[in-house]
C-alpha cells in the first residue's frame, strides 16, 4: 500500500484515495514530428525497475494532480511535488541519488 502526501492540500493519503496517472514528464510529439518520435511518445514507456516518476490525482480529496517519485521495487516513496513543473525538483533528485547511487537519472 502506497501512502503519498498531496502537495496541493497537505493530506497524507493512502492509495485508495488516489488515482494513478501513469508516467510523468512525458514530452509530447505531435504534428510535424517523425513517425518514430510519435510512436515513441504514444506507446513506449520506461517501465523501470527502480526509481519511477508518476502522475497521481487526489481524486477523493482535493481533486488535484501532482507528481510523485517512488521505487517500483521497494515501493519506497522518495517525495511528491507540484505538477506545474517540467522536471523534478533539484533537492528530490539529490535525495534519490543519495539513496540509489547507481541511479541513471530521470531523463
Amino acid at each position, binding site marked *: 500500500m502506497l501512502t503519498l502526501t498531496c502537495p*496541493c*492540500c*497537505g*493530506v497524507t*493519503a*493512502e492509495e*485508495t*484515495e488516489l488515482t494513478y496517472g501513469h508516467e510523468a514528464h512525458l514530452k509530447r510529439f505531435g504534428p510535424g514530428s517523425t513517425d518514430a518520435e510519435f510512436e515513441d511518445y504514444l506507446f513506449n514507456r520506461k517501465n523501470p525497475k527502480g526509481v519511477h516518476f508518476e502522475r497521481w490525482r487526489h*481524486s*477523493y*480529496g*482535493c*481533486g*488535484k494532480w501532482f507528481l510523485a517519485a517512488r521505487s517500483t521495487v521497494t515501493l519506497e516513496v522518495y517525495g511528491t511535488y507540484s505538477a506545474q513543473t517540467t522536471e523534478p525538483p533539484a533537492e528530490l533528485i539529490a535525495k534519490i541519488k543519495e539513496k540509489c547511487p547507481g541511479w541513471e537519472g530521470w531523463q
Partner: protein
Amino acid sequence: MPEAVSALKGVSHTGFATVAEAGLTGMIQIRADLASPRLAAVLAERGLAVPEQRKVVTGGGRRLAWMSPDELLLFCSYDEAPVLAGDLTAEMGGEHALIVNVSDMRAVFTITGAKRDEVLMKLCPVDFATLPEMELRRTRAAQTGVALWRSGPEEITLICFRSVAGYMMGLLETASRKGGEIF
C-alpha cells in the same frame, strides 16, 4: 412552489453512536483565486475570513470551509442560499469566480456520541486520532466521496452527494450498530 425536502427527510438511527441526516442545509460553492483581495473583502463583510488550508472558519452564523486550492464551501441557512449566492456573485464584480448554490446537490449527515469516530474508522482511510477540530477532510467512505470535519464536541459532520445519500445512510447505520464497536 413545491416544498423543499432533504434527501432522506432527517432520518436517524441510534446504535453505539447516533447517525442522522441533518436536513436542509444551505451550501454555496465558491470557485475563485483564494488569494484575491476582492474575495477576502466580500467575505469580510459577512464576518468571514478565507480559511487556511483544510480549515473551517465560523462567522456571522455561517461556516466557510476550504475544499481545495481554488474552492471554498459556504454553509448557511437553506432559505438564504439562493439570494446569498447571487449577492456574492454581484459583489465579486467582474473578477473571475464561480459562485453557485449547491444546497440541493448534497446531503449532510451528523454522527454524534462518544464513539462517533469508530463509525467512520470503518469506512474512511483517515487517521482520526490526528484529525484536529474544525479541519475539513475530504476522503472516501466505502465507495463514495465525502468531506467530514469535527463540527463540535462529540460531533462529526459529513457531506456527500445527494444521489448517494441512501447508500451513505446504509453505511452509517450498519457501521454504528450496537456490538460493532472497535475499542
